């Protein structure tokens, strides 16, 4: 029996069992399923948020960018720190509101603040459309990692199929609690793998990180400062991109929703303080990409750099361990994404938009059924429309970041109106799509989503000042 395969499937199965076990003894109602009954302490909140943030993108994308683009990959190190700083000021207020009015999702929040079913449904639909590519990214990444780590013994399709059926099962039974607990396995494995490879690979080939950089500086210094090997990603692009992604980070419906799981506002603040430590593994992942740039030049797809160098430098069982870590690293975020996409679709599109008289039990049952539907849809996307990993993520970010003015002004500015938010959101989304899909990203050197966000914010403020506060249209 192949050791790598054993490790990969063992991990997937143990994770599933932990996920299923997490929900036993909890009487499952909608509040327990989506926000863990608002009882998570600092450990679970930290695990949950780390579970959402550390995706397959950490393994493949960050090292892939270091490999093929160079310095622009630094943006990944920066935006997390900005996002956690913002969360310190924004999330406690959001949590209080959630506690007082029993909010569970992002559209719930828009409904409460602006009293508009139209806006709430709009937010839910944009949220779902942004989640789907992100979910697909996890599936594609998982298939890719397992196939490579098993040396082709397990096809990508088979890996995706099995692990997502199992993910589906623990989301169905345990809800958000399952994701938080599986996150323990994921974090331990991911940090171990990244720690060993990130420190080991530069040492094996160059004798250490410092010497690796010395070689790289001697050979191609331009790779290590902006814009690296991507002329369109100069300093201005990096600045606008970290602002967009930093502001957009907590606007992802699932990350936004996880704030409601906390036990108190204080927990959220303390969590914001310790979150930046999670950037260390990303740094190590970048080191792997830079080392691969020197050791394995000429890879067609930069996203393969991480696995290619592990394959070259380590025995196959360790490659299996990395593959297993990669698989759970896809399963955890995927479980949270599926859960929130289902909750948004049923609670905020169906119930709010079409059937306000639906009872809680019915919403809960339908949400669970929807888990299966959404997993299938994402599976179809992953198998038939695979795309470059990072680009997908950036399009999603452009979309959800447009919620920022509506959320922050809604929390802190009495004068803001729903009409203003609808106008801003519509303009922001349209402009971002136009620029990105029309090939105008970056626009004048700036991240297109950022340009759209500025237009959005100006519109929200201007229209709010011209209309009656609170109400919509």
């Amino acid at each position, binding site marked *: 029996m192949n050791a790598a395969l054993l490790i990969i499937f063992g991990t997937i199965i143990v994770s599933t069992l932990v996920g299923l076990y997490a929900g036993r003894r909890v009487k499952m109602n909608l509040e327990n399923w989506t926000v863990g009954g608002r009882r998570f302490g600092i450990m679970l909140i930290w695990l949950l948020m780390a579970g959402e943030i550390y995706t397959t993108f950490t393994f493949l994308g960050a090292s892939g960018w270091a490999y093929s683009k160079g*310095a622009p990959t*630094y943006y990944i*190190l*920066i935006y*997390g*720190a*900005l996002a*956690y*700083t*913002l969360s*310190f*000021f924004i999330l406690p207020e959001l949590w*209080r509101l959630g*506690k007082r009015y029993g909010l569970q999702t992002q559209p719930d929040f828009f409904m409460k603040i602006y009293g508009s079913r139209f806006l709430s449904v709009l937010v839910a639909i944009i949220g779902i459309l942004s989640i789907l590519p992100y979910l697909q990214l996890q599936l594609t990444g998982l298939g890719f990692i397992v196939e490579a780590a098993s040396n082709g013994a397990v096809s990508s399709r088979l890996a995706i199929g099995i692990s997502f059926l199992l993910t589906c099962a623990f989301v169905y039974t345990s809800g958000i609690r399952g994701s938080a607990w599986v996150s323990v396995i994921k974090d331990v494995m991911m940090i171990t793998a990244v720690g060993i490879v990130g420190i080991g690979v530069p040492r094996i080939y160059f004798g*250490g*990180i*410092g*010497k690796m*950089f*010395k070689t790289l*500086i001697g050979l191609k*210094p331009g790779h*290590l*400062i*902006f814009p690296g090997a991507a002329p369109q990603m100069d*300093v201005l692009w*990096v*600045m606008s991109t*970290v*602002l967009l992604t930093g502001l957009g980070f907590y606007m992802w419906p699932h990350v936004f929703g996880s704030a409601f799981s906390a*036990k*108190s*506002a*204080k927990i959220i*603040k*303390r969590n*914001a*303080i*310790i979150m*930046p*430590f999670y*950037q260390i593994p990303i*740094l190590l992942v970048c080191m792997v990409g830079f080392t691969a740039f020197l050791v394995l030049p000429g890879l067609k797809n930069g996203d393969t750099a991480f696995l290619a160098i592990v394959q070259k430098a380590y025995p196959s069982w360790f490659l299996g361990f990395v593959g297993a870590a990669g698989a759970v690293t896809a399963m955890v975020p995927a479980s949270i994404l599926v859960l929130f996409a289902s909750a948004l679709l049923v609670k905020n599109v169906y119930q709010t938009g079409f059937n306000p008289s639906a009872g809680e039990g019915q919403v809960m049952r339908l949400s669970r059924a929807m888990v299966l539907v959404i997993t299938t849809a994402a599976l179809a996307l992953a198998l038939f429309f695979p795309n470059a990993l990072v680009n997908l993520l950036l399009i999603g970010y452009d979309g959800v970041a447009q919620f920022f003015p509506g959320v922050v002004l809604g929390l802190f500015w009495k004068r803001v109106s729903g009409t203003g938010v609808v106008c801003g959101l519509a303009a922001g989304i349209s402009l971002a799509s136009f620029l990105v899909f029309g090939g105008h990203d970056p626009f004048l050197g700036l991240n297109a989503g950022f340009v759209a966000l500025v237009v959005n914010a100006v519109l929200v403020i201007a229209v709010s000042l011209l209309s009656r506060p609170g109400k919509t249209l």
Partner: protein
Amino acid sequence: MRKGTRLALLFGAVPFLTLVFALPLVNRIKPVIFGFPFVLFWILLWVALTPLFLFLAYKIEKKFNPPDDEEKP
């Protein structure tokens, strides 16, 4: 805005100043510090200091804002 929040926001502004607006000034290789190109060293330094500034923000909010600001679980 309460005094504690105002002061805390000053600390919160630090990562934005150093990690966004200072970037054009630090985009160079030299001096190499601890083996890292300068721009990467700069980014790591301020990312690593972010928890410290948030901790200070937390302390100062606690000191100046009335205690009822922190609700019970």
